[in-house]
């Protein structure tokens, strides 16, 4: 792989722009394609209109080289994980049974993928149609986020091939995790269906697409319901661990805190992701001014949600009567999270919206995202077993897998966005809904 990368790196050149006019969509009927028509379709839609050779050349970019290096490390570690076991790849112990793969890949992954249900409900249920351009990217981010959460989970589970057991074979209905399993499985399906219009537009399947669009409102309602349940249930998992999680983070309110913070994370990720998309994919349709206006709107929403979340954090603290713990090292750490990563981005957002500074909203959203990641890691890793001498530090192989999964997520997002109508509407179709 390295060889190939190195060889083609020298040959890197801008691929020639295809000069023949594109065959119109109707020219390639979806059914009964001839062989050459199929090849033409493949070339146009999979190779992005380039010859295979040019396409391979266009793959040689700094980002792809880094991604290839990450995979070169990640794939062997994957093999070690599934042939040698968890002990060979992780620093997990009986005292800390959940590490980076649960703490980051699953908990943070699910929270940061909340943008899908937030944007879909804002547009499809609450009628904020201005934000429609952000729905498809958010749903795609959500779907891929959840998909790779499941991939991360497969690494962590002792016997990943038994993943369907809790759903069909041996349901343990008293478990919060049972609820998480069902909700995540259903929500993954819902997000796939929610994304179907874009995929069917890409394939040119009109009637399927009509059918998929018809389901939008129902899917959105179901998606919000499932998200409410499992975002909070992920926090609810830790209701079983009083005394293990530091009292400042343990609270009966933890499901509500998880849900509120997931909404904040979802909104912030939409801002963050649209900022990156705008730069990387250079959308022509949505001008900078329009993106700024949408960003400011999202910043306003983020400020409100963060204020609610900030209030809930203090409510949980008051409920637990843990004031005296604020003046301990863990208390300072808690204050850093709550003041530096919840209150600060909240105020920054409010200030930025008031003064119409979209750049500042983006900055605040990055802080918010970091803050939610910090919160999830605090609960699952950093303050877990806070009073035990033995501390869990992830093995480098755990980081390698996590980084590989994130990279695979980015690569999937990019290749789908490059092919399907995600950031822009498809010209052959009326904008859905």
């Amino acid at each position, binding site marked *: 792989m390295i060889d190939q990368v190195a060889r083609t790196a020298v040959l890197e050149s801008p691929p020639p722009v295809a000069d023949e006019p594109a065959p119109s969509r109707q020219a390639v009927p979806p059914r009964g394609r001839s062989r050459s028509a199929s090849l033409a379709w493949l070339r146009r839609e999979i190779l992005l209109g380039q010859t295979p050779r040019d396409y391979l050349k266009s793959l040689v970019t700094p980002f792809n080289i880094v991604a290839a290096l990450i995979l070169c490390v990640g794939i062997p570690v994957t093999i070690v994980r599934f042939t040698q*076991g968890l002990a060979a790849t992780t620093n997990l112990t009986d005292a800390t049974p959940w590490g980076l793969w649960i703490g980051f890949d699953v908990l943070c992954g699910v929270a940061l993928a909340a943008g899908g249900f937030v944007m879909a409900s804002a547009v499809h249920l609450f009628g904020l*149609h201005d934000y429609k351009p952000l729905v498809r990217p958010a749903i795609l981010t959500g779907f891929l986020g959840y998909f790779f959460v499941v991939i991360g989970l497969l690494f962590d589970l002792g016997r990943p091939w038994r993943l369907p057991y809790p759903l069909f074979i041996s349901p343990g209905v008293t478990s919060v995790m049972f609820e998480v399993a069902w909700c995540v499985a259903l929500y993954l399906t819902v997000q796939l269906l929610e994304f179907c219009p874009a995929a069917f537009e890409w394939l040119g399947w009109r009637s399927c697409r009509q059918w998929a669009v018809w389901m939008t409102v129902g899917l959105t309602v179901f998606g919000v319901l499932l998200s409410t349940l499992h975002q909070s249930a992920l926090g609810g998992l830790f209701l079983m661990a009083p005394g293990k999680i530091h009292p400042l983070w343990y609270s009966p309110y933890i499901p509500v805190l998880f849900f509120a913070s997931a909404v904040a994370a979802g909104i912030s990720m939409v801002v963050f992701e649209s900022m990156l998309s705008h730069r990387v*994919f250079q959308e022509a349709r949505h001008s900078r001014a329009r993106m700024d206006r949408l960003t400011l709107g999202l910043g306003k929403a983020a400020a409100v949600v963060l204020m609610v979340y900030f209030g809930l954090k203090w409510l949980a603290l008051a409920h637990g009567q843990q004031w005296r713990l604020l003046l301990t090292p863990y208390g300072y750490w808690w204050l850093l999270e709550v003041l530096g990563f919840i209150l600060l981005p909240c105020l920054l957002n409010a200030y930025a919206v008031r003064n119409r500074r979209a750049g500042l909203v983006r900055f605040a959203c990055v802080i918010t995202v970091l803050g939610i990641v910090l919160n999830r890691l605090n609960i699952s890793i950093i303050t877990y077993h806070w009073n035990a001498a033995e501390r869990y530090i992830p093995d480098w192989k755990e980081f390698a897998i996590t980084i590989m999964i994130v990279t695979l997520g980015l690569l999937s997002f990019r290749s789908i966005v490059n092919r399907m109508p995600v950031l822009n509407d498809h010209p052959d179709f009326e904008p859905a809904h």
Partner: protein
Amino acid sequence: MSVSRRDFLRLAGAAGVANLAAAQAARASAAGPANPEWMGMLTDLTLCVGCRKCEWACRQANGLAGEEPIDAYDDPSVFANKRRTSGLSLTVVNRYGSDAAGEKPVHVKTQCMHCIEPACASACLVGAYRKSPQGPVIYDDSACIGCRYCLIACPFEMPAYTYDDPLTPVVRKCMMCVERIRDGASRPACAEMCPVEAITFGKRNALLTLARKKIAEHPDKYVDHIYGETEAGGTCWLYIAGKPFEELGFRTDVGTTPYPELTRGFLSSVPLIQTIWPALLMGAYAFTQRRETLARDSGASVAPPTENGSEKPESGRAVAVNRVAPSDDNPSLPSRSRPGRVQGRGSDQASQTRSESTPPEAES
């Protein structure tokens, strides 16, 4: 798009079924209240001499014995560090207090406490744990997916996982030798082995009576507490000791609430959310629809003809995109092309319309 009554009923029907299932689940409990027939164990820590023969017996009984001879268990150096149960040791003995201080050290045997309402059983999403009719909490790996939530949930941190097994990792924990005690013929291996009879096997109720009697007869020897009587809702394994339990490595902050109660409230909110959320959300949707209809009817002449009330596009190009094709029922309209697709590429090629010489950013 609007939702017909039939759609609504369909949705409501599906939600109803899901709700009843969830409500049923919230009611279901891993175990009922303490059963007077349940067996238990009483460990008298004032008697234990720390010979660790119980550890040996436990390994023998569970097929975990290695090459180590029984004499190796006499080595006192293991007491230097506090150990916890592991995949190979379902019970471990730790020493508290040292000989040097002049006082007699206390040895504490730990193993699964066999809760009356076990956290592990309520946490397990495949139902791998159950309370057996004899009292022990038993684990069956045939459905275990290896999520290790039981290790998180257990208030006493007793279950252990065989992380080094790549294909068939399991949770291991004491099962009170359920096979041996099932027919009432013999005692658990550790109780049978103990040379000083520090471990008594019997019905939990009888053991509680025995423990109370011992404490009452020797108030100078015992602290007035039976660990396990109420801890985490009560356990089948009970302890009495001559020193306060917090000095002997016992968790004294577990409270008296059975651990399944910690999530029961949350789980019972699930059917509520399932019932209320769709109605609220559909209400919001209906409200939005109505508002838009009213706005369209009253302000049709004033408002610009933007689709679905969406925002007015900025550029002339985008206007063209939006204005063309008011509906989908005329798919052959030739003008439905967007500048971004003139190169015959995917929508990614929007960049090319800006400057034809820019190489595709496609896979960069």
